[in-house]
């Protein structure tokens, strides 16, 4: 591991080349994800610049962890992708209605909620799902499930809204889905989880 652990001009040259690579990936990734965000060119490039800058800091901090099991670029690009996701999460709410809240499921389906329109046509199923959301989830589980699964809010955006992080939100979503599956399985709408079959 030479360049990033060198000093002087060689280090500066290596960092500059790496930043250029990360910025190219960041611009591509921002463009790939930006379709529904309503961001314009300068805003998108600002996100890409910030993502590349922060990814570079992460790479420099963690380069000692790189064990050569993959190309260095693939290892490093992870940080760009993660930073782009996080930074776009900040922008998500700017063009969204403020009423994507825990009661949103009661108003579904509507024009902002393509998932129920597309995937749940049977009123009986929707009624059962709605009842399970209302009765069987905790407030936090309900908020997370409605926002992420029904309203399509990106997890990083919703984690930011909660003052939490992706990992914690995923755990809540996992538990919510498991609880809903259990409720709907008891009513015969879905197969029970394997652990419940064995119990």
């Amino acid at each position, binding site marked *: 591991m030479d360049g990033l652990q060198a000093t002087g001009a060689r280090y500066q040259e290596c960092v500059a080349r790496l930043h*250029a690579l990360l910025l190219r990936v960041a611009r591509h990734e921002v463009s790939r994800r930006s379709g529904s965000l309503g961001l314009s060119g300068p805003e998108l490039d600002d996100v890409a610049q910030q993502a590349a800058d922060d990814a570079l800091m992460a790479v420099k901090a963690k380069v000692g962890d790189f064990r050569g099991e993959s190309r260095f670029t693939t290892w490093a*690009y*992870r940080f760009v992708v993660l930073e782009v996701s996080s930074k776009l999460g900040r922008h998500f709410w700017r063009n969204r209605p403020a009423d994507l809240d825990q009661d949103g499921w009661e108003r579904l389906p509507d024009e902002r909620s393509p998932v129920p329109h597309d995937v749940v046509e049977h009123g009986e*199923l929707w009624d059962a799902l709605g009842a399970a959301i209302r009765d069987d989830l905790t407030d936090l589980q309900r908020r997370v499930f409605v926002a992420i699964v029904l309203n399509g809010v990106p997890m990083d955006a919703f984690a930011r809204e909660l003052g939490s992080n992706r990992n914690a939100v*995923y755990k809540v979503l996992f538990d919510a889905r498991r609880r809903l599956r259990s409720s709907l399985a008891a009513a015969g709408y879905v197969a029970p989880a394997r652990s419940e079959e064995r119990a």
Partner: protein
Amino acid sequence: MNGPTQLERLLGDDPDRSDGDDAAPVVDAGCAAGFEVLHLYVESELAGGDPAEELPGLAVHLRRCPACHEDYLGLLESAGRFGDAGPDPV
């Protein structure tokens, strides 16, 4: 339209799913641990390997976590497109 199947899409897959009737369920790697090996998963896929076999915990997680799945798609695309861009800086 198959309502139950689509309802299951909302619920995600069985949290105790395994690849065989008698096999133990694969443990979901989670977001943080999954990120630590995401580059290996992508490299395996780009090389024509079987990353789901090599890293089953991450494969399960990517099926369930929309955020990490989106990261995976982004990394797969960028590693394929820009993976050999310029000399290796290390």
